[in-house]
């Protein structure tokens, strides 16, 4: 199967055939990838070079960590491309943005009010967790549709905090 794999601007055409033969941009390579016991670590030998890497997948993006670098890798084949086409109505530039708490914490301050216009990168909320105050910013310009939490409130992981439209 042929894949179009991208890391930022870099693009790789990788072909994996039924015998497990792999080519990258047309050049054949010898790959041995083994999943380790803790399931997010992999040992990869590529033409004799040994790499120990950590890999997690989320929302179709593979986060690969090796030698201190973290790459966000997008892998597409015919089918995923089609799916991407179907989903494209719901991308960040158009739909609602729901800012959820990535972990339990205490809301230190909500810096916006409903109906307020916000710029891209503007701080909307400060959440304290692990003794640190973390700022949450709007990923794009828009209008605050709802504020679901208030200062001093203890919230759970996944709680919806602010919605921007």
């Amino acid at each position, binding site marked *: *199967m042929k*894949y179009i*794999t991208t*890391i930022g601007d*870099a693009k*790789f055409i*990788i072909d*994996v055939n039924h015998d497990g033969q*792999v080519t*990258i941009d047309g050049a054949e*390579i010898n*790959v041995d*990838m083994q999943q*380790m*016991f*803790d*399931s*997010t*670590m*992999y040992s*990869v030998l*590529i033409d004799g*070079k040994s*790499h*120990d*890497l*950590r*890999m997690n*997948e989320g929302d179709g993006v*593979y*986060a*690969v*960590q*090796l*030698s*201190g*670098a*973290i*790459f966000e*890798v997008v*892998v597409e*084949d015919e*089918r995923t491309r089609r799916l991407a086409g179907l989903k494209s109505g719901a991308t960040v530039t158009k739909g609602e943005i729901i800012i959820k708490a*990535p*972990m*339990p*914490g205490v809301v*230190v*301050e909500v810096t916006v009010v409903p109906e307020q216009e916000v710029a891209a990168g503007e701080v909307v909320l400060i959440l*304290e*967790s*692990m*003794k*640190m*105050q*973390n700022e949450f910013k709007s990923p794009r310009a828009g209008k605050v549709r709802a504020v679901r939490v208030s200062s001093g409130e203890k919230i759970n*992981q996944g709680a919806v905090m602010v919605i921007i439209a």
Partner: protein
Amino acid sequence: MLKKILVANRGEIAVRIMRACQELGYEAVAIYSEADRLAPHVRMAQEAYLLGAPQISESYLRGDKIIDIAKKCGADGIHPGYGFLAENADFAESVIDAGLTWIGPPPQAIRLMGDKVAAREIMGKAGVPLVPGVGRVGETISDDELIASAHELGFPLLVKAAAGGGGKGMRNVYQAEDLPGAIRAARREAQSAFGDDRVYIEKLIKNARHIEIQILGDTHGNIIHLGERECSIQRRHQKLIEESPSPVVDEDLRQKMGSIALKAAKAVNYYSAGTMEFVLDKKKNFYFLEMNTRLQVEHAITEMVTGVDIVKEMLRTASGRRLRYKQADIKVKGWAMECRIMAEDPANNFMPSIGKIIGLTNPTGPGVRVDSGIAYGLEITPYYDSLLSKLIVLGDTRGETVLRMRRALEEFRITGIATTIPLHIQLMNSTRFQAGQIDTNFLEKNFKFNQISDPELMEVAAIAATLLAHQRNQRAILLHQGGPSPWRLYGRREVLDRRIR
């Protein structure tokens, strides 16, 4: 003589102190919150008692409960570690009043140095050089007055909380218009962290290094310093990497700073372990910042280069024994460095990371020490500090130490949560860092995380991700083909397992 020590802390520092207890033949008593039942400090202690709910106000800050437990279980001393109750003079006094040994400095010294404005005044009187600044002992200065004084001091400057420490309630201000907001933010943070919103302002020394001197004393008036640590690699006033010696401190400056630090310590009749923090400017002028009246996170690098076990000395001297070392015995040998491994995601603006540790390999081998508060299978919760482990390395030279640190960081594998390990690897690869050209702005001004575009590494990442995606595709196709077969059941189970773990 002490026999049983209650360690009023958690995480790596509780483990560190318990190791010292066990190596001295003392029994160690752990206290724990409901979130920490399976934490290493509970498992390695001889005894362990529950404090209460995970929130620190219900657990590790409950001095009353802690003293009660100590008395009930027959502990004869309490070591507070750092943070929590370590710099709470009232708690120290309560411990002593309860007839227990306080393994730390005199409560009066904690109290005096705990108010940074008061500390500045004492240090100034003792002849210790101070950064120019504005503050008044015991009084709240209004925002307006601070703003007015700021113009006299000039910019850039630093707004600092009078109470507390650990980099909280601090803001750098580069221009006048940012000052009111910075004062508000610092007050807010100080109020939340220390219950005291008093702030003061200090001139911000440009291109400064953070240099601190470790102090160690006994109750017989003997007090020595153990050389310096450089802690300039900071983010939002939180130290991330420390080293000893400093690349810019020579023997002459070390002795000069050391004797000033001792003078300052004697001004408050100090004993036990403590640290004098200074800023050092480009012309090698140094100014007093604050004193930390406790064991510090970064004490281990000083242990590595001097051979002095600071925690064991704290334990020994707390029961009235004399310091085992004189100033002349202290020789700095080799080069030590520490990387703080935090549960924070450097790729996502250092957002704290929580979850279960599903894989853990601590680096080992020559010259490597790990002081850690985590274990395989442990749940990292949002209630406490994000420090997981300290990776401490000793080499003959700074060059060897940096190479060894990089090697050890590559060996360090924590899976299940995000950590600062990738940041540290990138820092070790930075040529400016390698050359020792660092100051307290380095991390925020002269270094950019994740600007790696090594084509070979990118190719490896692309191949690995593609193969994993391919494997999943294949499995999905097979899973959709029909009824169960042994092979397919196996595949399904694997997928399930992966999701759960």
